[in-house]
């Protein structure tokens, strides 16, 4: 097992350290997507990742997300690709990246003179910047500098008894060393908010935890998207609180230190809840349209790496941060072994205990933090999605340790 002190990170100007040193190409409207993708396609397996926002109309959430992602510790340089007439404030984004100490360039397709010229200029900038990034200095990185997010997707009846509680054990190992761990999906916590609130570090935060779950319940009810279904009882789940506990068990047993909104950087080590449900009335549709929307938000909060629990067999990875797949179901694992990092289904076959799997997940994430490719990284997965949302800033009681 890697010990504290054996981990090295890319030191950034804000003091945070990255476990990867990626060059990010970011399109600022769908109209610039093809041009940006064509640049990235020339640099396979050289750590050049594509992200972007498709919308033409301005959105404060999307701007904050791209600012957080372009200044993420795993990112070493950024190329912005603009069509020219979209609403996105590219100057503000470029300024924020420059102030973070990273090399940055903006190419405006309408100014450069069209598709081909922009792709050529972009490729040249990427090539020279990659060369300049080669000898990036690293520094010793302590375990308590790691930020780890968790998400579940493609769940089945095994998720809540194998992979999720095993991730909870790994989270306990992380938070015991004052690393930062983030769990999310308040819509999946309906029914256990009072249990969760007992773990809050302050009474005011306990009230906030109950309130964010109530917000999620109301939001999903308006979308006519209930949580407990007939199929859950057929799979052996009896109550809403039992189902929610299955998802909630990813959080482990540490005290909850605060509630984050997408883009908030956790102010301390310990366990945080990410509130992914928008504020105000329902607008722009579902809170998150797929698992990658949630992964992007965990990364925007500074997550270096994502622990992804799946029963039915998701294959996704992500731009910017490695994704480690913890497969809950042993049959799924055998069918899709190349896509999976950990077989938590061994619990169902009596071949491992939850504590052993928690340690295995911890060891796997430490090895990945030291540079080993996760299964989804090795297969080239770099999914990314960003949609319109609306958030209000978190109140002071949500971050009592700040």
């Amino acid at each position, binding site marked *: 097992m890697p010990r504290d002190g054996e981990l090295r990170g890319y030191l950034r100007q804000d003091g945070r350290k990255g476990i990867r040193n990626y060059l990010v190409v970011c399109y600022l409207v769908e109209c610039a997507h093809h041009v940006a993708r064509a640049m990235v396609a020339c640099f396979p397996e050289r750590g050049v990742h594509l992200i972007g926002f498709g919308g033409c109309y301005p959105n404060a959430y999307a701007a904050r997300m791209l600012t957080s992602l372009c200044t993420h510790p795993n990112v070493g340089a950024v190329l912005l690709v603009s069509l020219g007439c979209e609403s996105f404030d590219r100057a503000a984004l470029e300024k924020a990246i420059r102030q973070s100490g990273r090399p940055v360039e903006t190419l405006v397709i309408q100014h450069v003179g069209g598709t081909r010229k922009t792709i050529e200029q972009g490729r040249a900038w990427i090539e020279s910047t990659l060369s300049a990034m080669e000898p990036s200095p690293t520094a010793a990185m302590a375990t308590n500098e790691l930020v780890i997010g968790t998400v579940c997707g493609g769940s089945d009846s095994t998720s809540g008894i194998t992979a999720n509680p095993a991730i909870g054990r790994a989270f306990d190992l992380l938070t015991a060393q004052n690393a930062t761990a983030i769990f999310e999906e308040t819509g999946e916590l309906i029914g256990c908010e009072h249990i969760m609130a007992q773990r809050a570090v302050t009474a005011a935060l306990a009230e906030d935890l109950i309130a964010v779950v109530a917000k999620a319940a109301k939001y999903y009810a308006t979308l006519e998207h209930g949580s407990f279904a007939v199929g859950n009882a057929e799979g*052996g789940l*009896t*109550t809403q609180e039992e189902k929610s506990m299955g998802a909630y068990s990813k959080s482990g047993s540490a005290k909850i230190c605060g509630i984050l909104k997408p883009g908030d950087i956790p102010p301390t080590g310990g366990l945080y809840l990410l509130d992914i449900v928008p504020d105000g009335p329902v607008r722009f549709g579902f809170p998150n349209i797929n698992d990658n929307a949630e992964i992007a938000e965990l990364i925007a909060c500074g997550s270096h790496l994502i622990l992804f629990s799946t029963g039915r067999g998701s294959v996704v990875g992500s731009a910017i941060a490695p994704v480690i797949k913890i497969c809950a179901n042993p049959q799924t694992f055998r069918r899709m072994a190349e896509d999976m990092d950990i077989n938590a289904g061994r619990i169902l076959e009596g071949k491992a205990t939850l504590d052993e799997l928690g340690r295995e997940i911890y060891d796997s994430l430490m090895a990945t933090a030291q540079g080993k490719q996760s299964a989804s990284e090795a297969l080239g997965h770099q999914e990314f999605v960003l949609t319109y949302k609306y958030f209000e800033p978190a109140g002071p009681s949500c971050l009592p340790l700040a």
Partner: protein
Amino acid sequence: MSQPVTDARLLFLNPKDNVCTAIAAIPDGTMLQISGNTVVTRENIPLGFKIASCNIGTAESVIKYGVSIGSATRDIAIGELVHLHNMRSDYLPTYTLERDESHAPRR
């Protein structure tokens, strides 16, 4: 596991639990060790379902993941299946939904 002997087909998620989860289908009439006690199942227990690991009295909490997931609606004996027929949710929604016709389900 630190528990007294429990059948390998049963999974305790937390030491405080009074139910365990079947990680294999267990037929009716199977002799099982649960926390050192020997019981014989009185129904089929499908994979993923819960079995009482001690006697649970009416209105007592059913504990899984170390927390209450609801209450017994009648006395439940060790080794019995625990599901909709003998327990219920204690969850009382703390939020209210405005009854607004514009949000009424379209069916």
